[in-house]
């Protein structure tokens, strides 16, 4: 390409991709179309705000008279979240390893990955409905639903993290004659541990939020009282519950940061 002038070369250095532009434009057009289909309009928004103001007014003052119901629901939610996280992580560790295509034969990794994908395919609330039908109302159904959801999420993240490790370190351990379990402990685990901690704390955070929701379909936790308070128009109790949930999530976040700090170094 000696004949190309420098001007031509500069103009082609950052070529504009026509398809990218077309796709962005199409997305923009679709957003406007979708908004018009759903019937968004300024008047609708203003009347909605009005309604919202009345709703907020009825939340005050927060109802602090039902602390026993609140505590029972919240503690059950916490139990569901912690149990589901621990069980989900413990099952995801071997499953994630089995799903890593760089360490496992194809038949095993595809089996594990299919299993993980099935766990991830349904929303935790739908999973909770299924488990309520299968094992009956209560915290067991909620815990099982969140165990499955946890496997679907961190199982995949674990497997992907293991696939991204440096082969060189594994090769060196293999060359020492180490058997497979030792290879995993010294060649693989140190490379992925800090990411595993990150994924696990994220999953605990996610399970804390989801455990407040599975109760809406009768799978235990604070979601049940929250839903019935909504239905009774008992908005001042709704407010108490929501503030409590927010506080738990914030505390969980601080805790997660602390755990990460301990392990990331």
């Amino acid at each position, binding site marked *: 390409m000696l004949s190309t002038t420098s001007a031509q070369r500069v103009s082609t250095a950052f070529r504009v991709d026509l398809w990218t532009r077309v796709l962005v434009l199409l997305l923009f057009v679709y957003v406007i179309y979708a908004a018009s289909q759903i019937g968004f309009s300024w008047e609708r928004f203003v009347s909605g705000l009005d309604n919202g103001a009345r709703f907020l007014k009825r939340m005050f003052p927060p109802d602090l008279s039902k602390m026993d119901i609140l505590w029972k629901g919240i503690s059950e939610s916490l139990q569901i979240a912690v149990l589901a996280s621990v069980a989900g992580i413990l099952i995801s560790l071997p499953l994630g390893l089995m799903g890593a295509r760089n360490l496992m034969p194809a038949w095993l990794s595809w089996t594990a990955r299919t299993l993980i994908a099935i766990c991830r395919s349904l929303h935790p609330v739908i999973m909770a409905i299924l488990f309520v039908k299968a094992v009956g109302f209560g915290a067991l159904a909620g815990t099982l639903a969140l165990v499955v959801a946890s496997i679907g999420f961190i199982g995949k993240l674990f497997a992907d993290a293991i696939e991204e490790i*440096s082969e*060189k*370190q594994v*090769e*060196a*351990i*293999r*060359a*020492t*004659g*180490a*058997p497979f*379990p*030792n*290879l995993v*402990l*010294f*060649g693989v685990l*140190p*490379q992925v*541990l*800090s990411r595993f901690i990150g994924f696990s704390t994220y999953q605990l955070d996610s399970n804390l939020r989801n455990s407040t929701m599975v109760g809406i379909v009768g799978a235990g936790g604070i979601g049940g009282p929250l839903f019935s308070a909504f239905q009774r128009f008992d908005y001042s109790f709704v407010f108490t519950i929501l503030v409590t949930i927010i506080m738990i999530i914030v505390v969980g976040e601080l805790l997660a940061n602390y755990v990460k700090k301990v392990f990331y170094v």
Partner: protein
Amino acid sequence: MSHSLEIRGLVKAYTPGNPVLKSIDLDVDGTGLTAIIGPSGTGKSTLIRCINRLVDPTSGTINLCSDGRCVDLAGLKGRALRENRRLIGMVFQEFNLVERLTVMENLLCGRLGYVGAWAAWRRKFPQADVEHAFDLLETVGLGDFANQRADALSGGQRQRVGIARALMQRPKVLLADEPTSSLDPKTSFEIMLLLKEQGRLNNIPVIVNMHDVELARRYADRVIGMSGGQIVYDGAPDGLSDEFLKQIYGGEAWL
């Protein structure tokens, strides 16, 4: 006790019909440092990696004899392969340390073929191994670095840890795949000297792949020249004539 390696008719073809190694015959015994030199892509690395079976040979035999017992490494699988790999130490071009583990943990990796998973997980290595590791750290000049993480070390320090890890295996043969290619000239000399000394001290043969002809001339007791997947020179380093180097590397401007 002497240890020896006897390679016969070794062929490796990554794609069928296009061999990288074309029937290699090679005997290495005693305690000297054998340098394998040759241009890139000529199969030096493949040859080294066939010996400890990080690469599976297509055909041929690789007999490792130690203490009067010989094993054909080329035919091994599973547990037998792992048990014989323990006898072969390997030093890598890019050190291949486990970055997030400490220097001490990296050294003890050399014993992973001998300890169970439960003990390894709890870092319960036999006291003799731990003492050996501290001795080796002193030997390679990193006595104060036991609890440093490997990713905090410089290139030369990492390669010293790599050598110490290989020696932790108490190997019968020490292999090194381009151990100095990622290092500066001064450190390269130090690393070569360390490999040579440790070979003599432990009474084992050391086989080193390298690009650097000067380094080979200076430290090798024996030089193997490879070109096009075959051995084209085998002899003393001072027998390497410019004429011959021209033949295996091609060209002459670099000489």
